[in-house]
């Protein structure tokens, strides 16, 4: 985002989590603002979550986030009002800014009675205040409960009516709609937006993250998406331990807030199949591991907790694991430079464009999911193409070597009839490439050529097939073809095989256990 710049600066005010224990230790705030103001603003905001930068658009408009003000019925805070003015001033392109309260108005009103509430438009200069109306964590939890029941195939007869009753897709629509509102404000109207809900770690995280994803193609890459989750969710203190029920503490804290975010991303993937570098499997596996506690990444409720638990030292990171399985997560249809992957995404949020996420909610119900998965075969196809390209390089090299050998033999016909060890040396020297020299010396025998020749199967087995071990696939399980025999393999069998580096380049090619044994690789 080009930070810090002359408008925005990094502050260490929270370096020991002293003003807000659920924020990261580093915050970005307007450069013009004094620490004193930040301090007072934090005091005026629920749990000290003062307005800080989430995303800065190249046009100068910013996306900032915070928690609700402790305004009660008529409380106000001069410094908080000043901070908003500073945020407004960072953007020269607009005379006003939006303050978006993502809660339904009635919920915000109810909070007033507890000394919390929302910004009074008359106190803050040049702000436009909006309620948007995403329901709270309890409504979402109940909705998911209904959805899961409804997805259960045994009570299937009026699935669509049941789906309507869960209101799940209505909630998904509300989240995407809010994000679209943020995108339009920032991108189309050059206007900054401050977003909050109650504590600013659920609905705020959802909409800020989704808006960033819509605005900036970077977040649609595998790396960028990871950064986005780190930033908007992990650093800004989405309470993963509580929301996902990692420990048996309080049922009322559990809510599928992050799952909803993943589902929103999935809805976008569905509408823009070429705009994301990662595929659906990535989201499903991410969903799995947010709950699995197999990795430390999503343990704890905020950065401070994770530091205290020494997560970094004691656990493995999910991102490393994902990196090692990256071939599973690449969207083969991703076109990095197309219109849709380069520009702001404008999703269609009309209800008929939102779909039920069957492959997540019915993931393990193989009778419900299609037996032929389009994306699998496309992935296989592109993997096959790249393997064959490697292979053709190898063949080209061998051809060239043989030609040279024959040529050399003809030229020296009078002198040498048999090729002795010395002649190999000679040829080596004429070769420029160091690598080639080696392989030439070692490999150029009939056997080696025939091994090379058969190192790949031209017609890989279709993804329709099951693994040779007959282990059934669930909808998100990975499939790989052995490049040598073309058989389909499941994740477990893949682990028995190995990746060998291609003879033509250093690219890794997967070979199954059978072939490893057979060819002594």
């Amino acid at each position: 985002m080009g930070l810090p710049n002359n408008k925005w600066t990094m502050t260490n005010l929270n370096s020991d989590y002293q003003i807000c224990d659920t924020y990261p230790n580093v915050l970005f705030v307007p450069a013009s603002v004094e620490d004193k103001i930040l301090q007072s603003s934090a005091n005026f905001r629920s749990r000290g979550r003062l307005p800080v930068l989430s995303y800065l658009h190249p046009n100068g408009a910013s996306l900032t986030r915070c928690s609700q003000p402790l305004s009660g019925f008529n409380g106000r805070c001069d410094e908080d009002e000043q901070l908003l003015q500073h945020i407004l001033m960072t953007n020269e392109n607009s005379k006003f800014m939006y303050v978006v309260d993502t809660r339904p108005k009635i919920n915000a009103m109810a909070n007033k009675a507890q000394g919390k509430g929302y910004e009074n438009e008359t106190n803050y200069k040049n702000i436009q205040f909006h309620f948007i109306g995403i329901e709270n964590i309890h409504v979402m939890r109940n909705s998911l409960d209904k959805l899961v029941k409804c997805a259960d195939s045994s009570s299937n007869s009026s699935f669509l009516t049941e789906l309507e009753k869960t209101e799940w897709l209505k909630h998904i629509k509300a989240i995407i709609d809010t994000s679209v509102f943020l995108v339009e404000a920032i991108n189309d109207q050059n206007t900054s937006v401050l977003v909050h809900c109650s504590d600013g770690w659920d609905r705020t995280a959802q909409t800020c993250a989704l808006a960033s994803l819509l605005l900036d193609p970077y977040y649609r890459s595998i790396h960028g998406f990871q950064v986005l989750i780190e930033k908007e969710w992990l650093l800004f203190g989405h309470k993963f331990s509580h929301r996902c029920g990692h420990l048996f503490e309080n049922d009322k804290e559990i809510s599928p807030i992050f799952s909803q975010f993943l589902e929103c991303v999935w809805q976008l993937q569905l509408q823009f199949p070429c705009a994301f570098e990662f595929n659906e499997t990535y989201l499903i596996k991410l969903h799995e591991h947010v709950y699995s506690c197999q990795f430390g990444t999503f343990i704890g409720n905020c950065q401070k907790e994770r530091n205290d638990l020494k997560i970094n030292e004691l656990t493995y990171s999910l991102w490393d694991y994902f990196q090692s399985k990256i071939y599973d997560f690449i969207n083969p249809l991703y076109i990095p430079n197309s219109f849709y992957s380069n520009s702001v995404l404008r999703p269609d949020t009309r209800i008929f464009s939102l779909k039920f996420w069957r492959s997540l909610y019915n993931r393990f119900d193989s009778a419900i999911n299609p037996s032929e998965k389009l994306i699998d075969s496309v992935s296989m196809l592109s993997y096959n193409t790249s393997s064959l390209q490697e292979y053709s390089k190898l063949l080209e090299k061998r051809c060239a070597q043989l030609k040279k050998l024959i040529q050399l033999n003809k030229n020296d016909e009078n002198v040498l009839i048999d090729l002795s060890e010395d002649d190999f040396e000679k040829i080596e020297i004429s070769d420029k490439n160091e690598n080639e020299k080696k392989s030439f010396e070692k490999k150029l025998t009939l056997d080696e050529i025939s091994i090379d020749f058969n190192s790949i199967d031209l017609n890989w087995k279709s993804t329709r097939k099951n693994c040779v071990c007959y282990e059934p696939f669930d909808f998100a399980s990975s499939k790989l073809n052995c490049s040598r025999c073309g058989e389909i393999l499941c994740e477990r069998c893949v682990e028995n095989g190995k990746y060998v580096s291609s003879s033509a380049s250093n690219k890794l090619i997967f070979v199954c256990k059978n072939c490893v044994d057979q060819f002594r690789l």
Partner: protein
Amino acid sequence: MDFMDLIEMPRVDNVKVYRQIQNYELNQLVTQKLFGSLNLTSHHLIFITQTDLQKPREEIWIVHSSIDSLEKNVTEAKFQLMIKCKNFQIYFVDFPTAYCCNSIHKSLESLSNLTTENMKLPFFCQTISKINQEDWNFYSIEKSYKRFFPNEDSSEWRISEINNDFKISPSYPKKVIVPKNIDDQALIKSSQFRSMGRFPILSYYHKKTNSFILRSSQPLLGSNNKRCKEDELILKCALPKGKQGYVYDLRDASILKTAVSKGGGYETEVNYPLWKRINKHMDRFDQLHISYSKLIDACINSSTQFFYKLDTSAWFYNIRQALYLSFLIADEIHNKNGCFLIHGWDGLDNTLLISSLAQILLDPESRTLDGFIDLIEREWLHAGHPFSKRYFKSAFGITPQKQEGPVFVLFLDCVRQLCEQFCLSFEFNEDFLIMLFDNLYTSEYGTFLGNNQNEREQLLVSSRTVSLWTYVKNEENIKKFINPLYKINDDVIWPSIFTQSLSLWSNLFLRFQINSKPNDEAKKEIVKLVETNLQVKIKVEKLRNELLELQKEAIDAGVLNSENY
């Protein structure tokens, strides 16, 4: 009657047309306003925008027969006509005066409701391409017979030409396949016992298990419990030893009494002892039309309770039911020892739907482009599905005779569901199915004219119009309809019939509401990937050969040895 009698005002100026178009940049529907003149010709309504320096001239052509319904809205200040098309497109037209609005409305009402087959568009479109007889004769019963029974001598079935003059059964084709041991006299007797003369004939023969599907219409039992020995004989002879026969009656058991009282009926256990009757309900074509209208209504007015509306339209119920029944049949035929006779009332609608879906599940051939066309010819066109009646109006309209019913649309949707669940096993793609849908209602090609082969012959369709398959087989067009990922699948396919597994056909039912561009981009990318893959394979093949030759040369020259040597 001449077209010109129906056109009072061939041209009206100062007309405004409103339609919704997709703004791709904003991914939004916007209303486009066009200003210009409206022209009526014998088959088209042509709207031409006024020439403007900034904007190029635009033309909108609407075929009269594609108009589903017209709604006039004339007030003191507004003279508007709403045109709803059979493909779900909607136009609003503002006229300068009430008089032209009324006049155009009157003309369009007549022109869009022409019932004389001879005046329909295909007869005026011979010039689009040459009439190719081969495409008209794409289907022949001899070819099917050969496919079902490669060895004619050992077959228990024969081709009968009893209906050669369409006398026995006007809605049957000239030739049909029947059990070998049944002579033509018995067929005549049986035809008199069956509604519309549709006696039991062979629809599909499953070579792998020697099981089969027959179809017919209901037997005419009537209240005095008539029976027909010859009809009973057909079913008795057809069933080989060791097979269980099932009569699949696509009507609920509760309405059989009504059927009998109206002179129809069912196969009684007493008279057909080898056959077990099973009643399975399918909505009739007129009920299906209501379902279809509700479905399209839900898609167009989708704001609230969309899924609830979708559910109450019963369209998904119908898809599930159709797939489920064909699934059961395929299971019996392939995995057990069942043979089937399918019929409902007249055997013109659901019978064909179920029998053709079962074949798609069972027969890999029918999942190829040619095989699918063959299936449509055999099980729908030659089987006498009344295309002209059923598709006279679409979701917005209905004629007073109420003969409309989108059974074939349901068939296409079921096939699309299968294509989606088995994305590698079908040679054709969704665009092919949408193209069929479009030509079903209004077409420049003669394929879907008339209600049966008899009518088509009387109209001389094959010498006066171009076949739709001529269009499909065109080198340029066929590319659009091929699934790039197709790999032949010799197995029977077993679809999932849970509602979760089914999807709304957005590219058809929401075609004027959603932005298809991002998905088209993905489709193109797949085609590109397949092509690159093919290129690499060719290259590798070439290099392999080259290497082998060089290797030989090297061995001959003595420069290459085996390690072990």
